[in-house]
């Protein structure tokens, strides 16, 4: 299919964005990497009146240490995340996640802000943000506000972003470590099940309507009881059936991932 007729404008500052929102309201769709958005246009799943290109806004770029956190500009591409030395040092989980995100061509254009705003339940970065207890810095014409990642994702493809608001940056507490693993049919596919684990915070993706913090499993992990953590997933997770299999398969895969992530040595011996 062809795109619907749509206007395009390039913003060079946040002021341009606020003005466009003021004029166009809900008809304005921000365009960053476009890796999901452009496909939805081609399916005519979305018909924005205006595509507002925000990729030339300098304040949305850059990665820097900022008050004990790593501040990652919303326009940071997945590829940029993967090769940044500060990310590798202070938020290695994000660097680990990058090779799991789609394919190189998509990683070269797709952005962290876009991935978080899109809130695909099978995406890696939302789960990482929740596991790392990151904070999203949001901005609108009215000013900035900060939302913990755990409160940002509100349901299937939906977030706490308000009309007229965008993601400026993500702030990640430094030194958290963690690991990310996933099971996908082919490399680069959305995961059938994935796990971002930071300490005793297991956050699953691909098994719900967004990143799922498995609280019962986390409590068991805090006690060092991996088997109890796996058992807790029966109540922590309520996965939907999808084309890859039934809920029972997703729960099973979640247990496999948790066991492997929490007790890698034990798994090797088995």
């Amino acid at each position, binding site marked *: *299919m062809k795109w619907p*007729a749509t206007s395009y404008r390039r913003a060079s500052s946040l002021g341009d964005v606020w003005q466009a929102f003021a004029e166009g309201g809900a008809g304005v769709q921000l365009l960053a990497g476009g890796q999901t958005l452009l496909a939805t246009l081609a399916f005519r799943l979305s018909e924005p009146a205006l595509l507002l290109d925000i990729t030339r806004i300098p304040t949305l770029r850059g990665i820097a240490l900022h008050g004990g956190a790593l501040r990652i500009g919303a326009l940071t591409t997945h590829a940029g995340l993967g090769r940044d030395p500060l990310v590798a040092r202070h938020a290695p989980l994000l660097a680990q996640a990058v090779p799991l995100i789609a394919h190189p061509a998509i990683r070269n254009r797709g952005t962290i802000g876009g991935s978080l705003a899109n809130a695909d339940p099978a995406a890696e970065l939302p789960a990482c943000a929740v596991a790392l207890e990151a904070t999203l810095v949001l901005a609108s014409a009215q000013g900035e506000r900060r939302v913990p990642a755990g409160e940002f994702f509100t349901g299937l493809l939906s977030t706490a972003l308000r009309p007229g608001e965008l993601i400026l940056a993500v702030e990640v507490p430094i030194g958290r470590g963690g690991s990310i693993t996933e099971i996908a*049919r082919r*490399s680069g596919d959305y995961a059938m099940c994935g796990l971002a684990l930071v300490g005793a915070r297991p956050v699953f993706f691909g098994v719900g309507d967004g990143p799922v913090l498995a609280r019962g499993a986390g409590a068991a992990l805090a006690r060092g009881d991996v088997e109890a953590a796996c058992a807790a997933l029966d109540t922590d997770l309520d996965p939907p059936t999808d084309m890859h299999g039934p809920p029972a*398969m997703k729960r*099973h895969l979640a247990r496999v991932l948790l066991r492997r992530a929490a007790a890698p040595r034990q798994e090797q011996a088995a």
Partner: protein
Amino acid sequence: MNEITIGLSREDLPNSYIGRSVPRPSVAKLVEGRATYTDDVALPRTLHAAFLRSPHAHARFTVRDTEAALRVPGVVRVFTGHDLAALCTPWVATLEHLKGMKSAPQRPLPLDRATWQGEAVVAVLADTRAAAEDGALALDVEWEALPAQTDMETALKPGAVVIHPELGDNLAFRRTATHGDVDAAFATAHRVVEARFVTGRHTGVTLEGRSILADFNRADGTLTVHHATQAPHMIQEVLAQHLGLPAGKVRVVCKDVGGSFGIKVHVYPDEMAVAAMSVALARPVKFVADRFESFSSDIHARDHRILARIAVAEDGTIIGFDVDDLTGIGPYSVYPRTSAVEGNQVVNLCGGPYRFEHYRCTTTVVLQNKAATCQYRAVGHPIATAVTEGLVDLAAEALGMDPLELRRRNLIADDAYPTTSPAGMRFEGLSHHASLDKLLSMVPLDRIRADQAEARARGVFRGLGFASFIELTNPSPFMYGIGGARISAQDGCTVRMDPDGSVVAASGVTEQGQGTEAILAQIVAHGVGVSVGKVRVVTGDTLATPYGGGTWACRGAGIGGEAALQGALALKAQILEVAGAMLQARPEALDVVMGEVVDRATGTPRMPLGELGRILYFRGDTLPKDLPRELVQTRHYITKEYPFAFTNGIQASWVEVDTDTGMVTLLEHWCVEDCGRIINPLLVDEQVKGGIVQGIGGALYEHCLYDEQGNLLTTTMADYLVPMAAEMPEMHVGHVETPTRESLLGAKGAGEAGTAGAPAAVMNAINDALRPLGARVTEQPFTPARILAALGRI
């Protein structure tokens, strides 16, 4: 034999190209973006078609209003099924030799009832495709959803939705082949092993979508159709017949075609609509299927459920096969090749590599409210091979016998030919044992079995699987022609020399990216005696090439290649006659080598072909008056002795199964195949490897998934999983060459061997890995969910 008569030995002459890996001349054009696909053809005043497609698997519809669509800027016309009914006659896709086959009349657009989700129901023409889509969205169509018949298992049961009431039921075709006495033999056999196999409905996913640009010129009454097709002459016949035009007034042109795999050898109703609309408006009309349309309206294939048994003696001798195949083909049999052929092939091919006495195989072909299925790469072969080789492995397991040993005992002996299979297939010459031996010289069996045992001790499950197969190539009129379809089994090639000594070969077979034109150039260069760079090949134009069948069922090399060779040799003889007159030598004493006439005995150069051409074309006054001047020769070729030239081969797959996740890692893959004379080893290996990948796709990934209401769930490349490079194994290809004696060239088909055997090899490898755990999978694709279920993990 052939070596002596035409110098087909590999290295004896600089222009001995047959058997040599010559790079495809078209590659640079393709990678530089200078190909001419149908969508690249731009004609003045072209209208672009978009179709409103049925959102329901089965529904009545009424087109209530088209005014809003016509008011969309750029929209020119709207055509309904009723509008097109006056322009294009309906077709019924049956073949007379498929006894009892039935299907319903199909039109370019249905009149009032859609029978699968994705069926085009209304066409909108506009100045651009985008405007046409806007117009289609503005159409007011009222839908009345009807119950859909989606499950093939219930298609013939009481209470089934009879999709075409005038047919009485949903049975399109049924055939049983029997040989010997299956019931008695199975009753007394030492062991009978049975299994239920399922092959997943999948599709071809060509890089270039289906494309057509139809241009009716009212001034001279000609219809020129640029078309992404494998069979331009067949399309010419179909268009002429159903649009009421003389075939001679219809020209079908296919320049570059971006992949086909059988997808582009069929008549699609939306494409017929495009041609009809062009005739109606006397304007060019273009349609290019997008990916979404491709998934829901390209042909699907392989939607089979098979219950099968094998009977074996105590010593491992195969006594017989008993197979019950059921397949759902969508709401209509596809024109003009029919959708009964895949099931028919299963009947023809099960047990194919083996010698046994008792055979019974039934295929039951039923209608359903899903996209139509039809011939896709290796038609029926992957199904028959999975059933046969799955049963052979199960029998080996039941007998406690090495599966290779069981194969060795039962494969038809290499000196047993000619022979006829219990299914009635006649084999001219196959090489199962030589192929198995060759395979075992490539597969490090001892290392693999040691690795497997060591890995199992660590809880890592690896498996090695084998699959012998036969493949039907070089089809004669027995495939379609005897059934009444105007599909040529014969092909021709015109070879001419121009004044500069360059050679042009026009062939009826076609190129879709596999290198048909490359091998034709090699054959012609070899046959005439010029460098391959001096040969230009013309294909894909019904006005410019000899009449032929095109490229399908593995016939490009075996049929088109032989016509090219004969044409080239005839041209060479003609050149030598002219050269003899010019050089006052006997033609038999001369030869053509690398573009020069030489003394046959000494190789001494006598005259470049460019000089011969100059004299012949520009100074013909200097030549004897009675000298024939035609430096152009046409030859046609058709197989006559055998209905098909069968090939054979064997594959092996080495995999690791993660028994926690159900994921399969393909470690290594081997294939030995015998396609007769190899014209270009590089291209044959590419064909085999590409075929293996496509077979692996069916085994592990590809699946057109429908819900119970007949909604297609896999409509994007994110949902429909094609095999991708990262997951593919290292592949090794070996060859045995048993040339067919039907032709001088001796070539058989090579394009489908990989696809025929790969799914069975992968299945047997997975089951070899799972055997210690008592688990087994026989339902393709072998997804993590199915493997975990077989393991009892979920």
